[in-house]
Every structure is written in structure tokens, then in C-alpha cells.
């Protein structure tokens, strides 16, 4: 019996730690308000993230932008086939800090700290999709020292290494089958890894075509988060299987894909600024999430099969007077999740983002930035069809239904410069 259990019961699937749906772009109040454009926009220290080359075109010697958002992400699930409903409401707090300093006319240095992947999804424990995910909490802080060189008056390049510190906590049931249950509570595993370090880089170039038109190009490298020695703890294991499900450690690789952004900004007058960005994210690096346990449990293979995805962004800024600047934007965010791979840990389909915001300039040095983001998702019928139930030897089982999500995120920040 014991042998049979250890042979067959375990093909642990795990969750998408860094899915497209969680790459909710909130990396600066001013730029978020403009549809999160920015690769060709020189507005504030936020450009250290959007395009390090832009630091060279900032007017002030010192620029500081600090801000944070409250991210309210909600998802509803229902299946009329089986009369199932579920809901998850989650709050995230992405933040960013950017500082730039013009060392001299042709070189600027900066520091960017931001959280492009940081969110959580928490369904009710033992809900209908518990075998795919009960809850997941992901945190990753990107620290990017940056330098920019102005090659000549019209052209600059910039870049810097990215140091990532991340952690992940993830819980799911081993199987939908309650044979592995203990007093009605499904046997589950918690994967926990913290202190995950990884490195990458961000480079960009900016070209001042005319006094009105700016072109930008930025590339952020792929970063592989290598979780090593994280804990894998089993709970609610029935006595019969306790010998197989002993707590252990695990290894898993989680790719953060490379992203290339090209854009243009146009400043017809001193009051108006328009921007367009195009992002292309190489999500196809995310083929499968494999969790390798450091004991005899078999490796869990979870196909993800993401596709490369594009995002189109539009933004506008209107400087009404010395005190007020208003911004608005829109973007279309294509989901990297393909049909049949729609898992409830990343319940995100294509979305339209609507953004807005304003800056109140307290004085020539200090400004207060407000922003909001509303992400609209159409309701979608989709499923994850690749769950290999460890208690069966044939057939992949499917979990799906209708999903509807929304994301709302107000933010506040300050800009300081001299």
C-alpha cells in the first residue's frame, strides 16, 4: 500500500508564481495616470524604470519620486455545469521609489526600487478548484542602480543591473479526490520560499527627434527566479498516507520574461503631452512550472504554455496651470494565458486599463501625485485542462467555468526635485 501510494499519488501541480495577470503595471504615479506609457516620456524620476536613458533629459539636477498604490483585485468564478461559485478579493500594495542625480551634463546616476510582481490570490480553502490553488502570495522587490549617458544633445543611452529579492507562499490541495482527506479537510501542501535572489538588467535608449517628438526603446531582461531549498509542508494528511507525505524542501524555477518596449511621445505645446507605448513580453519562456521535491516524491510538472503577449498604451497629460497637471490614459493588455491553460491562480484574460490622475504642485520643488487605475475584464469561459490527477493513471482532468475579474487601484505619491 505504502509503495503504491508513493508511486502514484503524487504529481503535485503548483501555481504560476509570476503570471501575466499579475504583471499589473504600477511603476509610478505620473506614468500610471498616463496609461503606464513612459518609454519616450521625460517627466520625472520614474523614467529610471521606463527608460533609463531618459534620465539624461531630465531638467533638474535631483529628482525624487516616491509612491504607492492600494491594489484591489477581485475575481468571481461560477460554473453552471456543476452549480459552483467562488470569489476572491485581494489587496496588494505595490510601491516605487526613484531618484536621479545629474552628475554632469553628460552623465546621470539613479536608483530605482519597484515591485512589478507582487500580488496575492486567496480562494476559500477546499473550494472547487482547491486542487489547483487555495492561495498564493508573491512578493518581489526590484532594485535597479542606474546610469545614463547623453551621447549628444539628441541621443542618450542608459541602463543598470536589476537585483531581485523575492518570496512566494503557495498552498493547494493534492487532489480533488477526497480519498486524501482528513476529517473533511483536503490534504494540502504549502510551498514556501523566501530570500530568492536573482539578477537581470534594464537598458534603454532615447532619441529626441525634434523638440516636440521623442522616441524611446527599452529592454528589460528575462530574470529566472530560482527557488532553492524552500519548504514543502503537508497538512491534513490521512494516517494511511503519512509515510509518503513527509515535509521536505523543493526547488523550482520561475521565469520573469524579457520585455521590450518601444514608444513615442509628442509635445505639441507646453501644456500638452501625448504618448504611445508598445510592449512585447516574451512569455513563451514559461512553458511549465516544475516543482522538484528533495525527497522521493516525484517532480510535479505543470504545463503553462504561455504565449508572447503585447500591450498597447496611450496616455495624455495636460498642464492646466502652475499648480495642476491632469493625466489620462488607456491600455489594452493581452493575456499570455492560452485557452485550456486558464488556471485560477492567474484568473486573468485580456483587459482594458483606464487610468487617470493629477499632480498638485505645492511649490516649485514638491508635487503631490494622485493616480487611479481601473482594469476591465470581460467575463470569460475558460478552463485549465491539464491537471494530472495523481490518483488516476489515465486522463487529464479539467477545471473551468466562467470567470470575471476587476482591478481597481488608487495611488498617491510625491515628486521632489531641484
Amino acid at each position: 500500500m505504502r509503495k503504491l501510494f508513493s508511486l502514484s499519488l503524487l504529481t503535485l501541480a503548483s501555481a504560476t508564481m509570476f503570471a501575466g495577470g499579475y504583471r499589473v503595471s504600477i511603476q509610478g504615479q505620473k506614468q500610471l495616470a498616463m496609461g503606464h506609457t513612459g518609454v519616450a516620456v521625460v517627466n520625472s524620476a520614474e523614467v529610471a524604470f521606463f527608460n533609463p536613458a531618459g534620465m539624461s533629459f531630465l531638467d533638474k539636477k535631483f529628482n525624487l519620486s516616491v509612491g504607492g498604490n492600494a491594489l484591489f483585485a477581485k475575481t468571481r468564478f461560477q460554473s453552471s455545469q456543476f452549480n459552483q461559485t467562488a470569489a476572491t478579493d485581494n489587496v496588494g500594495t505595490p510601491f516605487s521609489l526613484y531618484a536621479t542625480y545629474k552628475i554632469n551634463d553628460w552623465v546621470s546616476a539613479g536608483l530605482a526600487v519597484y515591485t512589478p510582481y507582487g500580488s496575492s490570490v486567496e480562494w476559500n480553502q477546499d473550494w472547487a478548484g482547491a486542487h489547483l490553488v487555495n492561495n498564493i502570495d508573491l512578493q518581489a522587490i526590484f532594485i535597479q542602480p542606474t546610469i545614463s549617458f547623453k551621447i549628444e544633445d539628441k541621443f542618450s543611452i542608459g541602463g543598470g543591473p536589476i537585483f531581485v529579492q523575492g518570496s512566494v507562499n503557495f498552498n493547494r490541495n493534492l487532489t480533488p479526490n477526497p480519498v486524501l482527506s482528513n476529517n473533511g479537510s483536503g490534504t494540502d501542501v504549502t510551498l514556501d520560499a523566501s530570500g530568492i535572489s536573482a539578477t537581470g538588467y534594464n537598458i534603454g535608449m532615447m532619441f529626441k527627434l525634434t523638440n516636440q517628438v521623442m522616441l524611446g526603446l527599452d529592454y528589460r531582461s528575462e530574470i529566472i527566479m530560482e527557488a532553492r531549498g524552500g519548504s514543502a509542508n503537508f497538512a491534513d494528511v490521512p494516517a494511511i498516507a503519512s509515510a509518503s507525505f513527509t515535509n521536505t524542501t523543493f526547488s523550482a524555477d520561475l521565469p520573469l520574461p524579457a520585455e521590450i518596449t518601444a514608444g513615442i511621445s509628442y509635445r505639441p505645446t507646453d501644456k500638452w503631452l501625448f504618448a504611445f507605448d508598445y510592449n512585447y513580453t516574451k512569455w513563451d519562456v514559461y512553458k511549465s512550472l516544475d516543482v522538484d521535491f528533495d525527497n522521493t516524491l516525484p517532480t510535479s510538472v505543470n504545463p503553462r504554455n504561455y504565449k508572447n503577449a503585447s500591450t498597447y498604451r496611450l496616455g495624455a497629460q495636460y498642464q492646466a496651470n502652475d499648480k495642476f497637471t491632469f493625466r489620462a490614459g488607456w491600455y489594452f493588455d493581452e493575456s499570455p494565458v492560452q485557452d485550456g491553460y486558464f488556471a485560477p491562480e492567474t484568473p486573468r484574460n485580456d483587459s482594458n486599463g483606464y487610468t487617470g490622475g493629477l499632480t498638485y504642485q505645492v511649490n516649485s520643488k514638491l508635487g503631490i501625485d494622485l493616480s487611479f487605475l481601473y482594469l476591465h475584464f470581460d467575463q470569460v469561459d475558460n478552463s485549465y485542462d491539464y491537471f494530472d490527477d495523481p490518483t488516476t493513471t489515465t486522463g487529464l482532468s479539467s477545471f473551468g467555468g466562467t470567470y470575471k475579474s476587476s482591478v481597481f487601484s488608487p495611488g498617491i505619491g510625491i515628486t521632489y526635485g531641484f
Partner: protein
Amino acid sequence: MKNKFIALAALAIGFASCEPEFEKEVTADYSAGEADFSSYVAVGNSLTAGFMDNTVSRVGQTYSYPNLLAQQFALVGGGAFTQPSFAEDVNNLGGFAGQPGSTRLVIDATQLNADGTRGAVEPIAGASTITLTPQAKAYNNMGVPGAKSFHLGIQGYGALNPYFARHATTPTATVLGDAMSKAPTFFTNWIGSNDVLAYATSGGVGVDQNAAGNTNPTTYGFNDITNANTFNSVYSTIVNTLTSNGAKGVVCTIPSVTSIPFFTTVKYNPIPDAALSANPNIALITSLHQFLALATNGRISPLNVADGLPNAVIINDETLSDLGTQITAFANGSGNPILIANASTLGNLYGRARSATSSDLIVLRASSIIGQVNTSAPAPFNVNGVTLPLSDQFVLIPSELTAISNATAAYNNSIISIADAKNAAAGKTVVAVADMNAILAKLVSGLKIETGSIYTANYFGGSATEGQVLFSLDGVHPNARGYAVIANEIIKVINTKFKANLPLQNPTYFPGINILPTN
């Protein structure tokens, strides 16, 4: 300032539209169609009662397919659904008080099987607390374990059946009468399995009343096959009664026994070479088989313990002519002192014996005795299935199988034609047919449910197959997951025939086999 208000207003709108809402509620399209579920009554036998693992238990009963159906009916106007009370079964053991070994079957992970593996099937430890205290109450679930078609109309059936004794409204009540007292607006009727199954599970020891031409059920023994004409007449009465107040319903056909694990788990040739080779008497046993092959004109095949193929059991086939005298004569003339000494024993033992073939079905109960020593016979003629032929009760031979399949086909023809006649007379669907025979037959090749999971009829073969098993450990009745599949098939029939829209149950979420580390 005006602009500020606009911005704030925009924020407020953002918050307000933040709640994700579906275009319609999950229940929006559910409908009862042409059916009225306000009073749903289920009529049937153990399958309807939620019998599994050889008993009805408090928890097992909650997984009865009528109860699972009623959960869905409740979404579209279904009324309360009651089942006979098993509140007495506080420890969920099933069985009956005072009957040792009647508790529900479990797998004991540490207990040895006959073949040396661990994980034996046995009744869960503990004493049953289920009594025969009369509840004198009609319930919506009128599934009575053990009931045959003609039992439903027998007055005082409670005297014959402890399950009905527990809830019969009066000592002279009939099952059907109690069912009708609930004034059904909708019914399911899955009766008839026991009319043939009792004969089958007993290994065909009863009488085929079709062959006997006996249409009087009061003269039947429990293991007899009910005469098809009797079945037709009784079934017609049941359906007429159930529909008499305008109720609609679903009738279920009777599954063929060849699709249930009770008859498919133990092969006709279950004895591996290694098991034989390990027997200290193997030389003797081998020469015995060689002698018998000769003396029985080849009815018994010589053993081959070296070909890597499992060996067939030997069985008693009462349809064969008795070769006892010939065998005794062969033994006496063999010149072998052992054979001469046992000449008459050999004649008695093997006169109607033969090796089993793939046309025979060995019942599940035989698994615990094959290869074991039977103390009723002298050594070395005492190894069940190897040197001692399995008796009739462990084997369905082809003639018995024919009797069973003919009866099953006749019953199912009756069920379908009675339903058809009802519908033709009404000019609409009044009685829909759920073809359980066809559905369970699919289990042989693997039944794929809506989520993609594949289930087979494999009797529990260790935890590796746990997730595929739809049958409980008694090999006859589904487990909870199997009942969910059955409920779904009935729902599909209701959705189609009565233009209803009811959600399915997801069988994946229902438990299968109960495994205990120790019992």
C-alpha cells in the same frame, strides 16, 4: 477646483464599478422544464437506498443517487427530500446490531490478503448500532435493499426485509403504498436488478424461473431468477401506480452483470505459476493434474508452472455428465499406489470437474478462498480451485450466464416498452428511460466524465486505481463517486426528455474507497 471634483467623481465611479458581476447568475438558466419536482419519490432497491460497501450507513446514505438528484431538484422548486433515518448509526458503521461482520467494508492497509499483499477488505471494526426499531414513516427515498420487483407490492414485506421493517408505516404496508402516500409529482424507479442479481451473485445456485415457466413469485426462492412475464406484469403495475396521480418520472434499466466488478475482478485463471511452485506439494499436484487430464478426457488441463501464464481454476460444472466411475477405474488401473489408494475419492471429487475457461465468471467472494486449504477435504485434494473444484456458488458457467443475460434483456425490454406505451398513450414523455445497462457497459472500456477524468469498473486494485473506481468494496454497488455518475446520467435524461436544465454533480469531488491504516 472644478477639475478636482471631476477627478474625485471619476474615482468614485471607479470604485463603484469595481465589483465584478456576471452577465447572469449561475442559477439563472436552471429550470424544471416540463417536470414538477415538488414531491420527488424514489423507488428501488439497494442501489436507490445508497447501499455501498455491503451495507447502508449513515454517511453512505447521503450519497444515494436520489439524494444527489434532490439536491439539484431543490434549485428548481424541488421540495424536501427525506430518507429513512440512520441517526442510530452514530459511528457510521452500517450493518445491523447483533450481526457481527455486517458493518461496512473497508481496506485495512496492514492486513494481509490471501495472496500475500497487504490491504485486505474487511468489515470495519466495531459493533453496529442500527436497530430494527420501527420508524413507521414514509420517506421520499423508498429504496429498500434486497427488494425485487414483485416485493414492492407485497403486503407486510417488512416481515421479510429488515430494511423495510424499519420504516414501513404499518405492519401490512407495501413499499409502493408507502411511496404513494408521499403523493409524488416526480419519481425515479430502479427496481429489477435483484430479480436476476441474486441468482448471479449466488453463483447460479437458484432456479431460473424462466426455464421453469413458473410465474408465481410466492413460490420463488431468494436466489431464483424472476420469470420475465411476472416481471413485466409487476413492473407495469408499479409504473401505472406511480403515474396514477399525473406524476412524471424516470425508469432505469438493469445493468448486465458482466459489467460489475463482482464478476469481472477474479479471472478464470487467477493462479500464477509462482504461487503453485511455492506449494510444497507441487510435484504431487502436477502429476495429479496430468492424471486427471487423461482420466477426464481433457476436461481438466495439465498444469504448466513454467510458461509464465496463470493457471485456470478447476470448477464443478453440474451440467456435465458424471465421469466418477471412469476416473476411479483409471486410478485403480494406474499402478500408482497413491492413486489406487484414493481411487474412489478421485471419482467423487472430479466426476463433474473441469478447468475454468474465459466463458466462466468467478465471483468476487472466491478471491479469498482460491489457493487456500479447505479443511472439509483430505490433503492433497483440499486446495480450493487447484485440487478441490470450486463449487457452484463461486462460478457462473455459460448456461447460467445465458439464463442471466436472457432474463436481463427481457426485463429491459419490458421496462422500455412499458415506458414507450405510457408515453405513446399520453402523447408526450411521461416516463423517460435511463439506460443504466448501456451506461454501466461503458465502464468496461472506461467511462469519461465531463471533466475528462476516466473511470473504469476495476475493482479496487490498490491506491493506484483508487481514483478510477466507481464501485464500492462489495463489487456490486457503486461508491459515492459512482452514485454521482449515476445521478448525472439521470439528470441528463431529465434535461433531455423533460426539457429541464439541471446542473450535474461533479463525481471527482465524491469519495471512493475507505482505506484505514489499521482496522
